[in-house]
């Protein structure tokens, strides 16, 4: 710790703090544009100037000067920093005047207006008129992808976006061309950014140069209601803020959660907004003479009740999809069990994880923040870049710090960092087992769904668990055994035991021809149900599941109901309701409660709170919101399963942008998908 005097207050700060950090520790606000806590220091905007005594007799960029670089006074007094002296004010006003020389001042037509760093700081340091009588510079707007609109005349060259794509996203998409006044921020030859985190550059842009393209001229920030919620596009559970205007979700932004997503979210989490409005199921449907016809809720319930009464309990089943909340699954499980069935499954991809092997067998036990402690990572059957882009950024962050041994068994892919490739099939994993204990303190495994969603998934899981115990991935004080999920609902489903009971059928068996007479499908859209069974689809979007349904009950999407989701770490989080479901659609738990009454098996709750109380009574760890309850590593399965297949690990995600019904309904995601696959060149380039 080093002593420093800031505006007359002496305080102790770590010697490696920058002056900017020290000033913030002293409670002083320092204006900045180029400085960003999660990016490297550039020091090129000069807005954070402070006066330093004992340093050079000129204003100092506080972001780029370290506390330990300051000299003490002649008698050993601590160095003195002033953040509000006349010299500082004048210096910052000078910087602001230069920044505004070429800035267009088109705030009235700029989408950043109202949440613009330059606008805000100009209020404090701007001058009321311009002394610049020459022409302003104008810059051509490059195309940089379907999600980010550019307006480069507004750019102040802070290079946050360049540093973001180089450091966090790891795709090196952006760069600064030319020099001096002519600097232009662009991608190489105006190609689309290739990162799954590209939308974040619009967030970190301190001015209106990079803006979210789909939200172009849609809304002003002060018109929107903000709801803090959780993303369900992948199993990371990123913290998001849903901005709504009236009944409409206008945009989705990240929130800071250092334990999960830091302050980034994936493009899918951000831009499925239009998918929430398209293809929506807004009323009930019943299939009559082979055709779905609009019906009232009571007609739909009557049709279900008639079928349920004519069906044996054992011929009924329930499937839960990837976006279902824990409450919905819990209620559906209670309902189907009361009908006398054990055919319950939330694993529509056929993954071999099961709560009976213990919670540690299906969680990301190290936690996402724990990746930063790891010194060796073996990725098995996973492509974290596609399956969990934000988590992949965390691995990359750890890799950039150096001293990380990385390995991959599975399909080769560009993960934005280097790794040792060991092979693509289970044999490579077996071979790896023979290596013996590795000389690393905190090694970890990341096991993807591609390794587990196959007939020999259980054998692979137990082999991985065995290796983990043998080579020290799991040991006292460190559990490096991690399963990376892709479905937001999966861990919650496994936690409440939404899996086949005694003698029950699993998802694959239930959807086979002739297996069931009646199936309750809670938003499972990634699986084909064979003809024969009477399918009741409870979901929000008209996707594959709804097309196959005999009765459709319209439900709320994740932005329209409060629901619990458990992320891949086992972190219990709430997705909050930001707006109301469209038309006659209702919240999932309420549909199931009403349906249970129509079926004569009334569920024992009358409100969502009562349902949650029951859930917490049955599964106590759900009480710990926002907390990842550690699982008992000793219970980890080892030595079970069967023979390994020779088939190499495939991939779980073919098209990152189209993995769930909401994303498939989104035109923006469709465009991203087309751009990523190179199917069509962008329009701007074709002019």
């Amino acid at each position, binding site marked *: 710790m080093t002593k420093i005097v800031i505006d007359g207050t002496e305080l102790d700060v770590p010697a490696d703090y920058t002056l900017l950090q020290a000033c913030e520790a002293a409670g002083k606000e320092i204006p900045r544009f180029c400085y960003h806590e999660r990016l490297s220091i550039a020091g090129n905007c000069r807005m954070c100037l402070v006066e330093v005594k004992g340093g050079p007799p000129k204003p100092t960029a506080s972001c780029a000067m370290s506390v330990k670089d300051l000299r003490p006074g002649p008698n050993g007094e601590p160095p003195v920093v002033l953040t509000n002296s006349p010299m500082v004010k004048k210096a910052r006003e000078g910087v602001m005047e230069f920044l505004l020389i070429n800035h267009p001042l088109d705030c009235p037509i700029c989408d950043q207006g109202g949440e613009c760093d330059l606008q805000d700081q100009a209020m404090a340091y701007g001058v009321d008129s311009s002394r610049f009588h020459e022409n302003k510079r104008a810059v051509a707007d490059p195309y940089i992808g379907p999600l980010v609109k550019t307006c480069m005349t507004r750019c102040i060259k802070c290079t946050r976006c360049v540093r973001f794509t180089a450091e966090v996203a790891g795709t090196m*998409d952006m760069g600064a061309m*030319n020099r001096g*006044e002519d600097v232009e921020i662009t991608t*190489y030859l105006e190609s689309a950014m290739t990162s799954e985190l590209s939308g974040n550059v619009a967030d970190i842009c301190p001015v209106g140069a990079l803006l979210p393209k789909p939200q172009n001229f849609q809304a002003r920030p002060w018109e929107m209601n903000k709801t803090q919620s959780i993303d369900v596009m992948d199993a990371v559970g990123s913290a998001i803020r849903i901005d709504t205007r009236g009944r409409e979700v206008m945009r989705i932004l990240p929130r800071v959660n250092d334990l999960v997503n830091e302050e980034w979210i994936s493009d899918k989490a951000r831009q499925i907004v239009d998918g929430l409005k398209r293809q929506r199921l807004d009323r009930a449907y019943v299939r009559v003479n082979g055709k779905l016809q609009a019906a009232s809720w009571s007609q739909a319930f009557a049709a279900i009740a008639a079928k349920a009464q004519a069906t044996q309990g054992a011929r009924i089943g329930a499937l839960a999809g990837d976006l279902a909340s824990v409450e919905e699954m819990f209620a559906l499980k209670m309902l189907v069990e009361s009908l006398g069935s054990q055919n319950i499954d939330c694993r529509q991809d056929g993954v071999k994880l099961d709560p009976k092997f213990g919670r540690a067998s299906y969680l990301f036990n190290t936690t996402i923040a724990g990746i930063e402690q790891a010194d060796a990572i073996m990725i098995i059957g996973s492509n974290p870049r596609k399956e969990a882009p934000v988590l992949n950024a965390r691995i990359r962050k750890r890799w950039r710090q150096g001293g990380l041994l990385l390995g991959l068994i599975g399909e080769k892919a560009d993960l934005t960092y280097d790794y040792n490739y060991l092979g693509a099939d289970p044999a490579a994993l077996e071979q790896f087992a023979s290596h013996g204990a590795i000389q690393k303190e905190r090694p970890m495994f990341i096991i993807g769904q591609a390794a587990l969603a196959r007939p020999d998934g259980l054998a692979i899981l137990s082999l991985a668990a065995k290796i983990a115990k043998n080579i020290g991935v799991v040991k006292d004080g460190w559990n490096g055994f991690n399963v990376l999920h892709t479905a937001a609902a999966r861990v919650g489903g496994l936690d409440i035991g939404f899996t086949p009971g005694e003698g029950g059928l699993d998802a694959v068996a239930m959807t086979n021809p002739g297996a069931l007479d009646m199936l309750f499908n809670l938003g499972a859209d990634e699986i084909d149900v064979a003809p024969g069974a009477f399918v009741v689809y409870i979901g929000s979007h008209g996707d594959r599941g709804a097309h196959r349904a005999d009765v459709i009950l319209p439900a709320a999407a994740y932005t329209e109901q409060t629901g619990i989701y458990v992320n891949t770490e086992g972190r219990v989080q709430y997705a909050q309701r930001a707006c109301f479901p469209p038309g006659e659609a209702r919240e999932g738990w309420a549909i199931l409660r009403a349906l249970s009454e129509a079926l004569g098996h009334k569920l024992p709750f009358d409100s969502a709170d009562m349902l949650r109380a029951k859930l917490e009574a049955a599964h106590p760890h759900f009480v710990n919101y926002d907390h990842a309850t550690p699982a008992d590593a000793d219970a980890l399965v080892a030595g079970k399963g069967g023979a390994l297949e020779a088939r190499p690990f495939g991939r779980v995600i073919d098209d990152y942008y189209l993995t769930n019904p909401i994303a498939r309904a989104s035109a923006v995601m469709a465009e991203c998908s087309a751009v990523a696959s190179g199917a069509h060149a962008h329009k701007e380039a074709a002019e």
Partner: protein
Amino acid sequence: MSVRRLAENQPASFEFTAQNKAWLEKQIAKYPDGRQASAVIPALWQAQKQNDYWLPKAAIEKVAAMLDMPVIRVMEVATFYTMFNLEPVGKYFIQMCGTTPCMLRGSDEIKAVLERRVGEQRHVTADGLFSWLEVECLGACCNAPMVQINDDYYEDLTPQNFERLLDDLAAGRPVKKGSQAGRVTSEPGPRSLTSLQSFYGADGISGPLSDPARK
């Protein structure tokens, strides 16, 4: 200066000659392992020399691939330094210094000659012989005004001797590098009281004893 972009007409491919490749590998070997990107400027320089003094897109991409760098990083370097030409230049590429000392010594007249004989900046004459660019200080202020043509400096220019120089180049006649006014390196000019020739002999470099007047 203004925004520089890649040329519109680009060759389909670019490949280093075996000799240049070997030269470049030697340059890369100068840097520690994993720091091969440090050789980006020599690599671009050599690519430019090989390709008639300008850098096509294919060369930029080739250099990026050879140095294992993202193309955009190489592109940043190529657009930053004006010594890298992104568009074709004439066989004689004239960089005219227009910075203060040269301007005070008459670079405007040199510029007028260029504008008349060659045309606008960055424009190659129809015969492909000349193109020119005004650049910042080339560090030969003692011999101002001056131009750099390809790799060589031509100094002490006047409109007359510069026109003659251009005529000679166009006709393929041999030309004298350095001062066009008969000066040796940057010795004091003809109007001054001392010169290198008075002390170091007629050629200015042979030493005091070679001066017959001193014997």
